[in-house]
């Protein structure tokens, strides 16, 4: 897909006849009028995608008066540090607590569910055993049931068993990741060779050792992908924490921000803190996206090829 400079194509006669010319994809000249329409479309879409976040970054530097009085897309009085200070000290620093809870839910839940999924996906990929078809069918079926649908039944059961409104109430349901099992199975099928496993068996390694010392190192990139998807899913989740938690000290940051925005009396007062709090809540996830882009793409392309 290398771009061929326009002048070469136009000034070299032999390129205009014969099959070589056709090997150059039409439309590699970005400044051709036809492409300008496409380029314009991409630019407009990029503006659409990025403007709200740009606005958020600017708005987090304003006080309540400037939020409504000044031009939305440019700076007014620089109030960011006051906002941050107030954000982290309001209600005895409950926002910091929310951030801590979110990291706890996302890291512990994401890590544990990755391990559980990798064990299961590896078993489905590398062993033939009675019931493997059934288990795989259940995994696929469960992947079609969105967490939102599960949340209400999970809450009913948790409150019956008496652990609603605890850390466990949010953490334990996140351990289930059928999508992770599905991904591991594909990944292990493609990358852990049967010959390698057979050779290790001949050398006398037991199955657990084969898994830990041979399969896991090969599966690490796939595990990072699964962890990321689960981490972000937990970081962004709202419905489950909303219904199972009532103690603000256990809230993740999403739920905390939502309760601030639900508070009609304090809404005027809280606007700038909601804006600043939103920015702070978004930054870690965006940072992870940017740092680990290739793992995202790996996960998405797996889904697209096999789904």
């Amino acid at each position, binding site marked *: 897909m290398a771009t061929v400079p326009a002048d070469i194509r136009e000034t070299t006669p032999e390129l205009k006849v014969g099959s070589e010319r056709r090997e150059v994809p039409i*439309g590699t000249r*970005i400044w051709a009028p036809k492409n300008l329409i496409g380029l314009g479309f991409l630019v407009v879409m990029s503006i659409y995608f990025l403007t709200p976040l740009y606005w958020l970054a600017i708005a987090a530097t304003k006080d309540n008066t400037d939020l409504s009085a000044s031009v939305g897309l440019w700076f007014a009085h620089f109030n960011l540090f006051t906002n941050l200070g107030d954000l982290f000290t309001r209600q005895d620093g409950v926002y910091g607590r929310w951030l801590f809870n979110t990291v706890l839910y996302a890291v512990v839940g994401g890590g544990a569910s990755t391990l559980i999924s990798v064990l299961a996906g590896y078993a489905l990929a590398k062993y033939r055993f009675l019931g493997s078809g059934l288990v795989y069918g259940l995994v696929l079926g469960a992947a079609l049931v969105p967490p939102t649908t599960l949340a209400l039944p999970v809450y009913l059961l948790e409150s019956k068993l008496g652990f609603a409104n605890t850390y466990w109430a949010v953490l*334990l349901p996140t351990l289930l990741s059928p999508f992770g099992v599905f991904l591991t199975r594909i990944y292990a*099928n493609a990358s852990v060779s049967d010959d390698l496993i057979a050779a290790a068996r001949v050398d006398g390694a037991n199955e657990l050792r084969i898994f830990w010392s041979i399969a896991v190192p090969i599966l690490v990139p796939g595990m990072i992908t699964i962890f990321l998807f689960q981490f972000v899913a937990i970081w962004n989740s709202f419905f489950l924490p909303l219904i199972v938690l009532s103690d603000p000290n256990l809230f993740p940051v999403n739920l905390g921000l939502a309760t601030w*925005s639900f508070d009609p009396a304090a809404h005027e007062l809280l606007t700038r803190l909601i804006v600043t709090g939103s920015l702070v*809540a978004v930054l870690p996830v965006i940072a992870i996206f940017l740092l680990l882009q290739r793992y995202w793409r790996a996960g998405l392309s797996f889904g*697209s090829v096999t789904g």
Partner: protein
Amino acid sequence: MATETERLTAPPAPRAAAARASNPRPRLSLSGIWPYVFLLPFLLVFIAFFVAPFVYDISQSFYAEKHAGGLGLAPPKVVWVGFDNYLQAIKDPGFRDGLGRVLLFGLIQIPIMMGLALGIALLMDSAITRFRRFFRLAAFIPYAVPGIVAAILWSFFYTPTISPITQALQSLHLQAPDFLGPSTILWSIGNISTWEFTGYNMLIFFAALQAIPQELYESARIDGLNEVAIARRIKLPLISPALRLGLLFSLIGTLQLFNEPEILKNVSGAITPTFTPNIFAYNIAIIQTNFYYGGAIAAILGAITFIFSFVFMRFTQGNQR
């Protein structure tokens, strides 16, 4: 589900079978128990947080609280009511109101979002190869924004006193539309969903496009097909599994709509307690603490989502062959 499993496992099978033939593995060796050991944690979690909640939910949905005395003086008793809760839900105008609204939403919003995602993916695949990394990133970043924050963010864009859109229009002496009125609110929510998920779908489509071998295009070019014809006749059929996947996730997401309307409720009076099926279920089960009726609604909603996904997959699979 059985044919789906076969279809997904089909491609790697010959290679795996060949490997097994060269290294015959006894089927009943000491390793026979290991796959079950590896599966155990997953199965435990699956039973505890998938099977058990649904079983409990459904078992509760056959009960209701009834006042014995009729005047409400005696304490309520929990009695078996059979399918009454389900019949009540199906007849409930609130449930139908929400379901109708999300279906209308899906009918309009999903095609717009898919069209945008496909357009961006096709442009990046063939015509605009420069700045590709930037465009890909710009489109994908909204997906990193938690749904709640996205909803809060856009609610500022819809609130006249703060909105930069209103500001811009007013500076041009134009009347800004009311984003939060009864006739516009659904499409304001549609815009939030489109903003969040276009990039996600685009990346799925783009990854599939990039996996198509370049040689396939060459014969088409020799036959004189232009880029549009190549896109229509070669690319779209080849990425149809990705299109299916994107559509399926969008369909499921639409039926579950909750976060955005729940947040916009703060700034718009047009979000009713029956606005979407999930908001309806939340109001019955959590706000009114009617676990029995709420349990039935949750079960119906789960069943509807599953049936929609299942029918969709069957239907589109037939088209592929």
